Every structure is written in C-alpha cells, then in structure tokens.
C-alpha cells in the first residue's frame, strides 16, 4: 500500500516557504482544473513495484534559523586561513577578493539566470562574458577565449584532445614536473580516444625542461607539447622559445598552462608561440572554496581551423537584425553538444560562468598596473620567504636554481626531521605549512611546496620562519 493514501494527503498540511502552491486550497483547485482527485493520479503510470514505499531516510526539515545554527556548528570545526597563516598553494591559492567582486557576483540578475539561450533578454551576462573572454585574450596575448571550462585540469584534458583532432595524431608530451592530479585528469581525458601521454624529464639542478629529452621524445606522432609557466613547483620555465621551436618544427600544437596572476610580469604565451593557452582562473577573484568551484581558462589563436575545434561556449559580438545596435550572443554553437550531439567538440554544457564574471570584475578592478603590481608583490614575498627560510639550519630552499613565482620547494633532508613531524609542530603553533610532495617526487627527498602571495604579510612569513627555526632546533638540545 502506498504511503500517500487520500486520507493522508488531506491530513498533510505541509506549507513550505519555497513552494507557493503547497497550500491545500490551491492544490485542490488546481487538481480540480486538471480533473483529478489526488496528486497520486499523476504518478499512476509509474510501475507500482518501483514506487518508494517508505519515507526517504533524511533529516526532518528545519526552519531557516535552525539550519543556519546547525551548519554553523558543523563548520566551526574548520580552521580558516584567516585564523591560521596557511602556506598551501599547489593549484589553489589564497588571494584577496575585492569587495566589489563579491558584490557583483551576488547580484541576483547574474546569479540566478540560466545559460543565455535567449540573448535579447540576457545581454548583461553575455556582455560580461564577452568582456571576460576579451580580458583573458589581453593577458594571455591570444585572440580567442571561451567563456570557461570547469578548471585547469579538465581544460588540459580538452586542450590535448583538441590538439589531437587538429593534428590527427595520438601522442602528447607533458613535463614531469606537473601537478599529479592534473596529469591524472589528462590521462582520464586521453585514454578513451587513444592518446598516449609521455613525460619529458627535467634538469635536476634547475628544474627546467630537459630539451635533449624533448628532442628524443618528440616525433611526427606528437599532437601537442605542453608546458606550464610558472611550473607546478613554482619556478619559471625560461626556455620557452626553444620548446616552442621544437613543437613548431614537428608541426605539433604548443599548449601553455598559466597561473594568470603571473601575466603582469611574465611574457604572455602568445609571444613565445603558444597555440592554446589554458590555466586556472581561481586566483582572479574566486575564493579557495576547499577546491571548487574554480575557473578553467581556455584560449587560442585567431585561426578558423582551431576555433572550430574549441570546446565550450564562446560569446560573440553582433548587432540587432536592423544593424542599429550592438549586442551579444553565443557564437559558433554548431561545435556544441546541444546542436552537434555525438559530433560535438566536447560534451560541456554547464560551465563556470559566474566564476568568469568574478574574474572579469577582478581584472577590470586591477587594470594593467594592478596586475603588474600583483605579480611583483608576489615575487617579493616569495623571494623574502625563500631567503629567510634558507637561513635556517638544515633547510634548503628553493631546491631548483631558477627564478620563482608564488611557490617554492623547501627541502628538510638536513634537518634530521621528517616533514610530517615539522608539519605537526607547525600546526600546534597554528601555522599550516606547505604541501608535502615526498610521494609525488621521491627524488627530491623530504620536500614540501610552500606558497606566498600578496595576502601573506611580513609578519606571517617571519612567524613561519621563527617557528621553523624553533621546531628544527628544539630536539637537538
């Protein structure tokens, strides 16, 4: 017997603030109009054997105040980076989010709208996304950007697949120094279509890509050569011209992954021959959010063959039919799943549009000068931290002799302590150290990846340095 007998239905008086038609009188009237006695009649075609015969085992509904109190109590078990200086980066970075960014992405007109399928009534979102794409083009130097991918890792998967379609080849070269989650995501995206991924070694002293190894591994089968700048371990890859030439000589696509906050100080990838630029847009006004939602950047050159192979939505500028007014709408939709179905360049539909709005507001707020100052500030903080930490006995930082931006490796081999011990003791002092990368790069020994940005004050860095000095010195006595 089903739970919702007529008697029970009538007895039910569940009026919920989110469900305006939940009052019994309206329900009854509407049912009458349809010609039914009971809402159950609308489910009559659901086979009885599959009908749920019990109530879902979920908490009972709570009032808004109770919900708030309940979740706040749960969340109070978290320790935020505001309460504890945190030196973690590795693809998710602490940055200040200007108030104006928070304000605009909470505008309900943008927040609660759908993908702009009816452009005339959605000009606001469309223009913001066009401006986002345009600003991504300005900082990366590319000419076309899409209006977002899920994150950097999935953007890499899509970029390599795009290169494979363009070149009709089945191999891609990536650096050995890459975020393992990014490399694994690429593997997941590549496997089903038979793309093989090979890693190119690095110079053990500088961390720079081993050009000789690249030359050995690149061939007429190479669809894409991928590098990152700055690299996963924080240093800048300086041999970009040489790598680009290798790719060009073999007619492989050159894909560059970026942290966009570096592009006020680092050469835009367009200037060293990138065909596709991807990256993580999170530092552009999007909080860490425990790892998501983030913003996958995806841009390419103004080349019709490439543009037609791009994944995701692209907003274009057009005019009204009578050509009297400028306007914006989705362009080149014949690449996309809702038109092309199984022949689409990607299956992506819902993307990270509101994160793209945040990035647009962020870049518009910073302007060219702000972006440059951001990059320089980050370099200064990182340099300062590396110098200070390297004075501590037993610590070697950075591991690689190369210029660094935002992140740097710290090796504890000569401290006589493991990273685990040091990490625990830092936590006791309410400091969160960097990411342990011992499992990822065993050849680097007891090494962690530290991160400093404009949010880290000199006091924060000094506090870390003092703590490390004490922790390392402690047990020796």
């Amino acid at each position: 017997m089903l739970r919702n007998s007529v008697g029970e239905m009538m007895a039910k008086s569940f009026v919920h603030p989110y469900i305006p038609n939940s009052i019994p009188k309206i329900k009854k009237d509407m049912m009458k109009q349809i010609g039914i006695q009971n809402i159950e009649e609308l489910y009559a075609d659901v086979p009885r054997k599959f009908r749920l015969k019990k109530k879902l085992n979920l908490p009972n509904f709570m009032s808004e105040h109770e919900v708030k109190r309940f979740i706040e109590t749960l969340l109070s078990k978290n320790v935020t980076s505001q309460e504890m200086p945190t030196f973690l980066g590795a693809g998710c970075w602490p940055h200040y989010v200007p108030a104006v960014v928070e304000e605009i992405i909470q505008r309900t007109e943008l927040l609660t709208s759908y993908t702009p399928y009816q452009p005339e009534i959605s000009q606001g979102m469309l223009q913001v996304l066009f401006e986002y794409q345009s600003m991504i083009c300005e900082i990366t130097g590319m000419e076309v950007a899409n209006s977002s991918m899920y994150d950097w890792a999935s953007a890499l998967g899509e970029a390599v697949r795009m290169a494979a379609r363009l070149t009709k080849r089945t191999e891609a070269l990536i650096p050995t120094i890459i975020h393992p989650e990014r490399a694994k995501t690429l593997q997941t995206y590549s496997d089903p279509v038979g793309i093989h991924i090979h890693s190119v070694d690095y110079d053990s002293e500088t961390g720079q890509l081993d050009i000789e190894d690249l030359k050995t591994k690149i061939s007429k089968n190479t669809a894409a050569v991928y590098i990152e700048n700055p690299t996963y371990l924080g240093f800048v890859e300086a041999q970009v011209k040489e790598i680009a030439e290798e790719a060009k000589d073999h007619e492989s696509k050159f894909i560059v992954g970026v942290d966009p906050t570096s592009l006020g100080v680092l050469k835009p990838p367009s200037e060293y021959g990138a065909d596709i630029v991807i990256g993580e847009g999170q530092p552009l006004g999007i909080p860490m959010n425990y790892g998501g939602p983030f913003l996958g950047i995806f841009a390419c050159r103004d080349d019709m063959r490439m543009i037609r192979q791009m994944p995701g939505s692209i907003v274009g500028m057009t005019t009204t039919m009578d050509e009297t007014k400028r306007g914006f709408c989705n362009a080149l939709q014949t690449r996309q799943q809702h038109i092309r179905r199984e022949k689409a360049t990607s299956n992506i539909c819902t993307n990270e549009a509101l994160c793209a709005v945040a990035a647009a507001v962020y870049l518009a707020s910073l302007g060219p000068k702000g972006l440059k100052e951001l990059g320089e500030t980050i370099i200064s903080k990182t340099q300062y931290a590396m110098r200070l930490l390297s004075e501590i006995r037993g610590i070697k930082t950075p591991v690689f002799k190369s210029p660094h931006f935002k992140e740097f490796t710290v090796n504890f081999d000569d401290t006589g302590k493991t990273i685990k011990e040091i990490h625990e003791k830092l936590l006791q002092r309410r400091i969160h150290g960097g990411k342990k990368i011992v499992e990822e790069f065993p050849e680097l020994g007891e090494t962690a990846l530290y991160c400093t940005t404009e949010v880290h004050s000199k006091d924060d860095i000094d506090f870390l340095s003092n703590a490390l000095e004490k922790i390392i010195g402690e047990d020796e006595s």
Partner: protein
Amino acid sequence: MFKQARWKEPVIFELGHLGRRGHILPPVEKEIQQVVGDPKNQIPEKIRRQTSPRLPELSEVEVMRHYIRLSQMNYCVDLGLYPLGSCTMKYNPKINEKIAKLPQVTSIHPYQDRKTVQGILEILYKLSHWLAEITGTYEVNLQPAAGAHGEFLGALIMRTHHKFNNEDKIRTELIVPDSAHGTNPASGTMAGFNVVVVPSDEDGCVDLRALKDAVSERTAGLMLTNPNTLGIFEKNIEDITEIVHDAGGLLYYDGANLNAILGKVRPGDMGFDIVHMNIHKTFGTPHGGGGPGAGPVGVSEELAKFLPVPTVAFDGEWYYLDYNKPYSIGNIRGFYGNVGVLVKAFTYILSLGAEGLEEIAEISVLNTNYLMKKLEEIGSYELPYAKGRPRKHECVFSAKKLNKEKRIRALHISKRILDNGLHSPTTYFPLIVEEALMIEPTESFEREELDRFVGVMKKIAEEANENPNEVLQAPKNTAVNRLDEAKASHPKTMVLSWKMHLKKTTSS
C-alpha cells in the same frame, strides 16, 4: 507593460581613463623591499613581460556602475517564471548563499590537514549519503563539476567495468534514445563509444522493439532520462532495464529530470546502475548564467570500486579523504568537487527534509499538468505524443499549426514571450517534436504566475491571427531588439574578443 533596462553601456574597454584604479594592493613592507630589491630583476629578461596588457583602467565606482547596468539587462529567476524545459529553473534560497559565503567554506584550502577541516568533510560525507538515499544508489561521488561532467564519468565507469570483465574491446556501443539531451551522445563520444540512436514510439517513449534490435554483444550500455524529455514517465522501464542488462550492458540515468520523482521512485530501484544528479537543477543552487553547478554520480555496489579518487570517508573518529581505490577510473578534475555549490545543496536538503523533497516533486508535477491543461485549452498549441497521459516535470508543445497557418514559428513565439517580461521555454528540443516549446514550471511558482504565462501564450496566439507582425518582429521590450545570431558565427563578421573587434575595424 514590461520594458527591460536599455542602458547604452559601452564595452568595458571603451570606459575609464588612463591612470584610474579600481583596487589597490597592500604595499610590500619596506624591510622586504630592502632585502629583495626590485622584484623585476628576479625574472630573466627573456621571459619578462615587456608591454602591459591592455586591460581597462577604471575607478571602483565605474566598475560597479558598469556591472550593475549590465545586470539590469539580464532576466533571472528572481524576476519571474523561467520555464526552460529540462533546466529546472527553480527558486534559489537565499540562506544557501549566506552559508556558502562563510569563511569556514570559502577560506579553507583543499590540502589542509584533516584535523582542520572536519566540518566541511562531515558535510560532504553526509551529503553524499543523502544523495545515495535519494537516488537509491550504493555510493555517491561528489566530484563532477556539472551534469555533463557526471555523464562523462558515468560513461568512463561503463568503459572501465567492461574492461574489468575483458569486454571493453567488444562493448563499444552506447545507446541513446532520439529524445535524449544533447550531452548524452556527446558524453558517449568523449568516453570513446560509438553512439547508437534508438527511435521513440508513438507514445514518445523508448521503442522496445527498436531497443531489442539495437542491443547486442557490442552494447556497453544505455543512457536514459526518466521521466523523459517529453515529461513522460517511461512506464516500460522494467522491460528496458531487462533488455539492456540481458545483453550485458549497463543502465545510466541522466538526472536532469529528477525533480519530478523525488521521494516517489528512485533510479536505483528502477534498475539503473549509474546515476548523475544536477545539483543546480534539483537541489536549488543557482545557475550563475551558465555555472558553476555540480553533477554528483551515484553507482551500484558492484561499480563503486571504479569511482574517482578521493572519496570522503569516516573511520568512526575522523572524516578523511580516502585515496585507496585501486580500481578507480582515476581523476576527472583537480581537487574534490565544486564544494561551494555542494554546501548549498546540503543546506537545501536540510531546509526541506524528506517531506519537503516529496512535496517538491508533487507540486512540480501538479504545476506542469495545470499549465499543460490551460495551454491546451488555448487551442493553438498542440501537444504531441501520449494523449491523455499525465506529464511529470515538463511538457512539450508544438507550434506546428501556427507555423503552417501563419508562418509563426516557435522561435517567434519565444521572442514574443520575452516582450511580456517572462522567459521563454526551451525551443526546438526535443528533436522529435516539430517547432517544439518545452516547458518546465518547477514547484517554485505560484498559480498566479503560471496563469500570467498562460495569459501571455493566449495573447500571442491571438496576435498570430490578428496582428502577426507583433509576433514576427519581437522582441521589442528587451534590452536589445532581435539579434543577428548568424552574423556572430560567420567567419567574416565574427567578433569573439575586443582584440578581434579592433583588428576587424582597423583592417576594414
């Protein structure tokens, strides 16, 4: 009468003035400056940026005004009915936003020590269990960023399952109905399958005979949404699952249409092996003009070992991230999922409870059938397929008659709806309906608002007879009149960035 704001708002690159600033960074401390010197010198010249990016230069005041003006030229669910079929544009509760903005959500790093993130881990752990309960699946993974991302994961799980059984070389075909969402076949291709399309029967449901013909030893699985894109419940679901399972295939449930059956019937109980949910549809999180969403995937016990790493686990004392899954398909993204969105779903489920979720299903279905009845009464819009059968979350009308008689197409109707201060339904989908208008009201709108929509549809039908130009020339009350979308996609006229615009205007 409705008139949307019509700001003549320039593109941001045309605004501002050299030297203006919208944000100032904290200065680098003097002591650091002394130690480090000019930061520029840290970067070798060959990799240093020489020319500034041409970003706009605006004060904070101008930035704010620009985006507020743009936002006023954007329709949203807080303004009224947004009846896009299969999009479930429901109300987005404000408490969810408040919770997701707390620093205990926004300011925690994914690599923090588990001791410092017990709160968020507990939320994710509980949420995944609640979603498993709601869908009748064994284990739910929260990582996919969107529905299509979940579909990709689901298709990969199928692939891995067949590989586990040494059948991946043979099982290369993924079956989708011709009424399926576009993401289904696209996800199949992404996961390396050949997509086989099965036709619908005269009721708009899966044609069982065609399905029997389509399955073989090559079948990897079937992707299905139930209720389907016509809003009709696939009543032969037991036969469908049997046909596919007997052939050795798996069943995938596209959760885009889950709203109608919450607490009524569960995909897992119907025999589906893999299920995705659209958090931004069913669980009330905002669409953000395209995203972010979240697309968790639930699977049967047999398939749980293939889910991506890490999963959130609990050892009786601590919540932690479990990477120990040797059969996992691997990673589908960085980190663990769109946590900022998932927290809103957690809030939503608490705000409704089991009873509230079932009420959502009931009222969304009641609203659909009410709208359907009222729209049928107008007489100008036809309801193809399954006469007399109730619809669930959505219904699909055809403007075939108006097109034939008056050359007024679904496109024109949708534009004229905009003129009345409402959003239009989804048009030209599903593909099996000519001149389709696909309508999903959700549970979020009061009868008065539904009646307003019916009134607009009635008025348009009248205009089609009496003054068709009003309809053909729509929209006129929106921020811009009808746009030339073909121009935006033609290689000669295409402008995809401001840089391209400058290039085109200087060269011509």
